[in-house]
């Protein structure tokens, strides 16, 4: 039983790796991480540490990883559904959820492995010759970026299982990206501006409302980096705004979309 998902995952992996578009897509986060690591010691103020590098690279990764993750994931199921090969595949002794999980693992791995390698190489660039090495921060940065990547591939694959055409899957995936990676923070800022101008609040939003906005994957990612990677910064506020809750939020974002996708896909009429 266990070997079935491995076969599906391996086949999906090897098919994806050969595509030029996938290579270009994966080069994007790698180049961004390496370039940031190269420029960070020159641009940033001291102290130059691998921990503070996490905060430096965070802003770009918050935008790039969602896009790349969704683009990697959205085609996972629905492409085969459109071409009809999904039905052929399901005529083999494989469960539907096996296929979804296997493809998810293949594509998440496809994004996570180059990114992790880039972070390790980037840490080297930060440390040599100007920075100082904080091993724990590098390990945490790797796991947090891996978790964030897994989240957005999960969103992409989920979108892929929910709809009938690749175009709709892409639309659904990107709608999620735009909502949570772009519009979300704008809403927060607008709300804060309105409340500030009407003198209902002074300074920051009330903490329960902050918590609502902290539920997006991007904000969870930022909180995690502030809490676990960057040693010069601290997460402030109520307990539910802490980095540990953010870890649970990010985990929920990995599991949640995929669970919804699998649940719906198991019951769908594919004819």
């Amino acid at each position, binding site marked *: 039983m266990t070997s079935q998902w491995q076969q599906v995952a391996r086949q999906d992996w090897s098919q994806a790796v050969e595509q030029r578009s996938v290579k270009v897509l994966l080069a994007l986060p790698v180049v961004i991480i390496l370039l940031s690591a*190269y420029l960070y*010691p*020159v641009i940033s103020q001291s102290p130059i540490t691998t921990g503070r590098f996490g905060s430096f690279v965070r802003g770009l990764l918050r935008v790039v990883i969602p896009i790349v993750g969704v683009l990697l994931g959205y085609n996972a199921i629905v492409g085969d559904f459109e071409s009809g090969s999904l039905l052929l595949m399901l005529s083999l002794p494989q469960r539907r959820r096996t296929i979804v999980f296997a493809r998810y693992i293949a594509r998440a791995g496809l994004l996570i492995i180059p990114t992790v390698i880039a972070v390790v190489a980037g840490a080297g*660039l930060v440390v*040599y*010759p*100007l920075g100082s090495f904080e091993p724990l921060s590098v390990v945490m940065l790797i796991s947090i970026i891996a978790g964030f990547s897994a989240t957005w591939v999960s969103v992409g694959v989920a979108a892929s299982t929910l709809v009938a055409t690749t175009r709709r899957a892409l639309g659904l995936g990107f709608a999620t990206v735009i909502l949570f990676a772009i519009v979300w923070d704008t809403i927060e800022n607008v709300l804060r501006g309105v409340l500030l101008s009407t003198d209902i609040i002074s300074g920051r939003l009330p903490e329960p409302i902050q918590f609502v906005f902290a539920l997006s994957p991007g904000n969870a990612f930022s909180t995690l980096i502030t809490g676990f990677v960057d040693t010069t910064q601290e997460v402030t506020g109520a307990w539910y705004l802490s980095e540990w809750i953010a870890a649970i939020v990010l985990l929920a974002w990995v599991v949640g979309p995929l669970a919804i996708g699998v649940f719906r896909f198991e019951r769908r009429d594919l004819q």
Partner: protein
Amino acid sequence: MSEWGWRIDTTGWQSVARTDARRARRTPTILVLLSITIITSIGYSIAYTYVGPSELTFMGFLDGITTLLSFIIPAIGLLLGYKSVAHARNTGSILLALSFPQSRAGLIIGTVVSRWALLVGAISAGLTLSGAIAAILYGTNGIVAYPLAILMTLLYSAAFIGIGVGISTLTTSERWITLSTFGSYFLLVIIWDGLTTAILLILHRFNFNILASPPDWTLLFQLLSPESSYNLLLRSSVGIDVAGEYVANTAPTYIGWWIAVGVLIIWTSLPVIFGFYRFQTADL
């Protein structure tokens, strides 16, 4: 196949080497290459009278000829090796050769041995003759170390035979062979030191002050080119005034002649081994 799955069958390398060397004696290109080696060596021993400094010594001659050879031998070695296997593959004669009790590994090892033996012959002959001429013209002070210098030159030449034959086994495309042959000469002989500086500058974000006091690893990296290793070997064995930065007091203790020997052995064997693993399963 024996019980050791990775044991490599080297049947017939002696006969391959013998045939290859015999055939090479009748190949004009190879004869020209070998003559260039001999003529340059002998020619320099005479020309040193005119191009050398005012005070002509045997050590000065040795310094000059090893510098000259450090540029010529790479070219000769690469040109001797670069078509060896690929030519036989393109003409199809390799299939005939392999129909005899000769394995693929035997074919490559035999080729490397024969080409290197040819170059060994040319270098030994050339350097012995030119050494003799130089001893007569410029005195015998320092001639005791001369055999060592010849030995180091032979080791140096092996590296480029290895690279040449390695390139030849990797691909049959004429364009790639030519490109990688010129590329390896350019990279290993001409721009290696510049490359080290470039990498150093890039890593240090173009802070040019670092060039005044480069870190220790740059020395090690520089030593990875066959030419630097050859120079270091000449310095430690013969005492020619080259490669001073490796023997200076400031040089790290882990840099020494043993690394230079290791580098030359790696450059000899690694391209051949890498080429062999491609060649072993290649469709001929």
